[in-house]
């Protein structure tokens, strides 16, 4: 471990943070615009062009707001929870290959890392729920724990097929192996399970039970305000982006696309654009779903995970295995 490595890592860390902050700003704006237009409204219109800087203004407002600590709250848990939620989301950006060579660190267990790290955020959510000393927040935290843990399993199993096809857990290798065919065509079921599980992981409708505002007021962040609340918000959108980005990596061919010139200096820029476009399409799909669908109930959510997705994921693995065997037989 030398100095330049630390230096590089520091630069990358700050870079990711800036990237997350920017992307959250844009995603929040996008969400509000999409929601608005779906609901025959305009969405924010006053600050900047079509309200583009509205989120920034909101951010300023949130930062300048008083951060309220409930009287009987567990001070430390309450204080730490947003960061415990945010840091895993932040860390998970490390293994996302935005373009060839544009990746912080290409682990050979990159995928495993990605699946493991965001799960830590459930600790933060439970901390928030417990620390607020609020029954709604507690219920939200508990729901979140149950939900994230149960959706980890189908999610992890659904990517096994991809790993089997790519023969590696390195995200870069997975993308490279999709140069001829995207895995979504080989793994439609896997994609479906992965995508829906991601929805559940990032607590979005129809699986936004931890913060179901019509039942639990605002779930685990009922008592949060100001900057702490905005950190929760940021980590949610960071998770959305990371989840969708990985989905692109695993199933939609990562940076691959048409019209990418070879060997030119700007070819990696085009690749980056392809990657971002694909991610944004998935994010848009998420938003679209969010503003269309009602919410599941807790037991139905669990049913869906354990009774539908888990068996399907297992079937998917089996099918993939058979497929690989068949392909081997066929080509050998």
């Amino acid at each position: 471990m030398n100095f330049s490595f630390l230096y590089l890592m520091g630069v990358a860390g700050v870079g990711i943070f800036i990237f997350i902050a920017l992307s959250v700003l844009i995603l929040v704006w996008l969400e509000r615009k999409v929601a608005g237009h779906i609901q025959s409204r305009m969405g924010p219109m006053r600050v900047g062009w079509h309200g583009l800087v509205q989120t920034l203004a909101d951010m300023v407002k949130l930062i300048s707001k008083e951060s309220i600590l409930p009287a009987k709250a567990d001070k430390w848990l309450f204080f730490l929870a947003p960061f415990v939620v945010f840091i895993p989301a932040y860390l998970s950006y490390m293994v996302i290959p935005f373009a060839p060579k544009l990746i912080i660190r290409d682990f050979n267990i990159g995928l495993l890392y990605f699946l493991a790290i965001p799960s830590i955020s459930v600790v933060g959510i439970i901390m928030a729920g417990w620390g607020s000393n609020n029954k709604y927040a507690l219920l939200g935290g508990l729901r979140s724990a149950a939900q994230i843990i149960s959706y980890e399993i189908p999610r992890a199993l659904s990517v096994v097929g991809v790993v089997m096809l790519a023969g590696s857990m390195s995200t870069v290798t997975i993308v490279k192996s999709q140069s001829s065919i995207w895995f979504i065509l080989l793994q439609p079921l896997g994609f479906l399970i992965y995508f829906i599980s991601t929805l559940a992981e990032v607590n979005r409708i129809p699986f936004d039970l931890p913060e179901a505002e019509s039942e639990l007021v605002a779930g685990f962040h009922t008592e949060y305000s100001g900057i702490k609340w905005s950190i929760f918000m940021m980590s949610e959108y960071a998770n959305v982006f990371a989840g969708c980005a990985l989905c692109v990596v695993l199933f939609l061919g990562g940076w691959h696309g048409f019209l990418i010139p070879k060997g030119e200096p700007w070819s990696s820029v085009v690749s980056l654009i392809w990657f971002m476009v694909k991610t944004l399409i998935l994010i848009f799909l998420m938003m679209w779903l969010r503003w269309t669908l009602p919410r599941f109930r807790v037991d139905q959510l669990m049913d869906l995970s354990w009774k539908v997705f888990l068996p399907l994921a297992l079937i998917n693995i089996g099918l993939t295995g058979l497929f690989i065997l068949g392909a081997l037989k066929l080509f050998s």
Partner: protein
Amino acid sequence: MLKKFWKFFEAFQSIFIGMGITFKYLTSKAVTFQYPDQKRPISLRWRGLLALKGFMGETPHQLLRESGAEPQTYKAYVHKRLKEDTLPHCTGACPANVDVSGQNALVAEGKYLEAFEIVQERNILPGVLGRICHHPCEGRCRRGYYDEPVSIKFLHRFIAEEARKTRRKNNPKLKRELKKREEKVAIIGSGPSGLAAAFDLAKEGYQVTIFEKQKFPGGMLAIGVPLYRLPRDVLLFDIERVKGLGVEIRTGVEVGKDLTIKDLKKQGFKAILIAVGLQVSRSLPIPGIDLDGVLLAVPFLKAVNSGEKVKIGKDVIVIGGGNVAVDVARCARRVGAEKVKMVCLEARHEMPAFPWEIEESLEEGIEIHCSWGPKQILGKDGRVVGLEVKECTAVFDAQGRFAPTFCEEHTKVVEGDTVILAIGQASDLSLVEGTEIKLNERRQLIFDKVTLETTETGVFACGEVTTGPSTAIGSIATGHEAAISISRFLRGEDLRKGRLPAINLEEFEEYPQVDLEDIEEERLRPRPVKLSVEERIDNFKEIELGFKEKVAVKEALRCLRCYSEKCVGCTFCARTCPDFCIEVERTRDGKRVAKYQIEMGKCMFCGLCSEQCPTRSLVMTPQHELAFYQKELLEYDKEKLLRSEKGYAFKEKEKERKYA
């Protein structure tokens, strides 16, 4: 298993359909308004901030005649107001459209003579009508909706008395401005309609001559109306004023006998107006009609009113249920009959006589036998001894026409030694003989409904000849119409152009009787002083006495000045408000509004107050959001209200604010 799979598929399908719908709206145009580029249009009926448009006393009350005293322009203006739904109901309900609210406002200010002139323009006999009018205006008075209508009739009477005190024959200004015209107009009959036409024509400068059959002018007013309702000096004073404009009245000249219409034309009368009215009493084709002791109403009344001795018995039967019958009965009571019985076809509530007259006659001990029709007059030795009557089961048929049906079996005998028939009158149109004027088969005049012209050019008709049995004010209204036609005819203009029909009384709703139980004393109308039955029963003294000045002014201040758009401080908004957030007070003399305060914090914008406002000065503006900023609109305190004659700052601001 397959079923489960199908269900799974259906789930996805439903989700995709939903996504399709949301995508449709994502791509279509938003429906929201963009503030401030776009503004939401607000309904005209928007219930926002309350505001007052003006106050009583700040500016003079707008008189209807300000549109022009000309009968034609006046009528057009009245119709315009009617169309805008801003015509005071009293004016609309009056057949002659007298400007009642103008009169009341001027009386309230103490300008009695001006008030008199205003009334006189439309109603040439204010003193007379102030006594005998059947006042349809009072039934439609908006005040009657809240408590009791304004005593318009008595105010007429009051201003006429005031004018009489000055002994002024006419408005000197009017006489000074008179233009002389050469054309001569002859008017046959000096009843109210003839006088009205004469007045209008004389104002325009025509040389008007009235021919009257009787020895005194006034027509039916002089013959038919009993003295206890109308003293003759009042009538004569009113007629004097018409004469004062240069109208010549030739009494004792009967056209048709002494003179013919042809003679009149030869004498140079360019236009002739027939205003002879209904002077002949109808008779009945029943047995015993020619017995001694059977009289007719008109000759009877004429004799009574001219002070002649009338020969009637002690026990009088009057046949008929109209106003004339009541007059006859009451006159008979006064000239010596001890018992008077009225027999009429109609039931009590159907009687055509005015209810207050029936009431008074009952007070005087007159018996009324309702729903009986005369069968025959019983006689003994050529003298009347009684009247046999049969029961009348229905007076009107299903279409509402007069077609009485009788039950012949059910009869009774009413005893009496004199029978007076008051079952209606007809006109004596023998004067038309030898001219081109045509009569229809029922010997009624054929005339144009709009222009009142008869079949001969230059000859017009007005009054009860044209309308049938009517009232004094109704006749006056036709007189004005005829005057318009004649003056147009003489000037050679189109008679029909722009002529408007009379306003239908049905346009205005008659307010129901108000329960006066909880109402304060000062809100009620003053009760006129009446002679008691003992005092009046044996003489022809006037029964009702007029108002004193103080009472009259107070009564005039009760007028709500409908549609004047100036708050009169009537307090009905405050009485209606469910939140008690309005406070209104008048000054002690009642002539100005001293306080008007709306507590906007309490107001819940129900709009009941502005719905109640008779003047339409309290309006709801569409400026809801300004409620807290324009506080000066809401509090009208004494200082502001009484600051100057011309009003206060509100009016300048009004220009800036735009009502939707």
